[in-house]
């Protein structure tokens, strides 16, 4: 995963999480059937997906860093993408 794609994933995760938070707080102000149902279904799905995307990015970054550390100990440098 390149730095650009991990950044894109995180932007999507942040937007999804903001949408999830909006759906989850909507039920406080309007505790009727649809807001509560949407908060407990779509809100939860979006929130979980955003956290999953964050976990994926962090894990990919961690693996890339490990690979880079291993590669730097070899005589030839690898062509790892930028992970910063």
């Amino acid at each position, binding site marked *: 995963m390149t730095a650009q794609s991990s950044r894109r994933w995180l932007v999507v995760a942040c937007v999804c*999480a903001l949408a999830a938070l909006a759906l989850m*707080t909507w039920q406080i102000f309007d505790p009727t*059937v649809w807001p509560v149902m949407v908060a407990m279904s779509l809100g939860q799905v979006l929130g979980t997906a955003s956290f999953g995307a964050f976990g994926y990015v962090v894990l990919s970054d961690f693996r890339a860093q490990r690979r880079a550390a291993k590669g730097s100990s070899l005589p030839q440098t690898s062509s790892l993408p930028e992970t910063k």
Partner: protein
Amino acid sequence: MTLLASPLSVVELACAALSAIVLVGYLVFRPPLVRGAKIALLFGLGVFPIGAAFSGNVQGFEATKERAFCGSCHVMALHAADSDDRASGSLASRHARNAMFGSENCYVCHANYGMFGTVLTKAGGLRHVWLYLTEYRNTPLDEDKKEIRLIDPGMMNGNCMECHSTEDALWLKVPSHFATVDDTRAGRLGCASAGCHGLAHPFWIPEPGPKP
């Protein structure tokens, strides 16, 4: 609004606000994914939203017990309005005026009792939502009044007996109670029937006859 009624709402709002600050900050500044940014995002995408979801879910489940929630589908509007009517003599309204039932009188009387009562009630509620979406969403209220009925009227006596045990000597002194106690306990004769304590709701349609 239940904002001030429940501390859970305040917790949910606080978690959501903190999370939103972190997320908007990330979207605006787009910092590189160094350790500090990862920790901030862990809170913004994980810890705070989980806190908001947990408190929101508990708050949501509590909200589903409220009469206002039940009455927010148009097919239940008359039932909710009757319970809200302090001058009404229906069983539902009389129980709504009792502090033990109050604004949760729909849930207290209609929830399944027993160990898994809450889970069964919530599952039944999802069935109600499905039926509403597929059958009753656009039907006029006059039609709904004639069609909507209890799926298991026998269960209702069990709910009545949670408070009115049918064991008390005073209760058994009433001749009609004494004569029908076995049928009442077995759910063959409804407490809330025309010949006994009257219909729970003025719009409720009883079963055609006692079950064998």
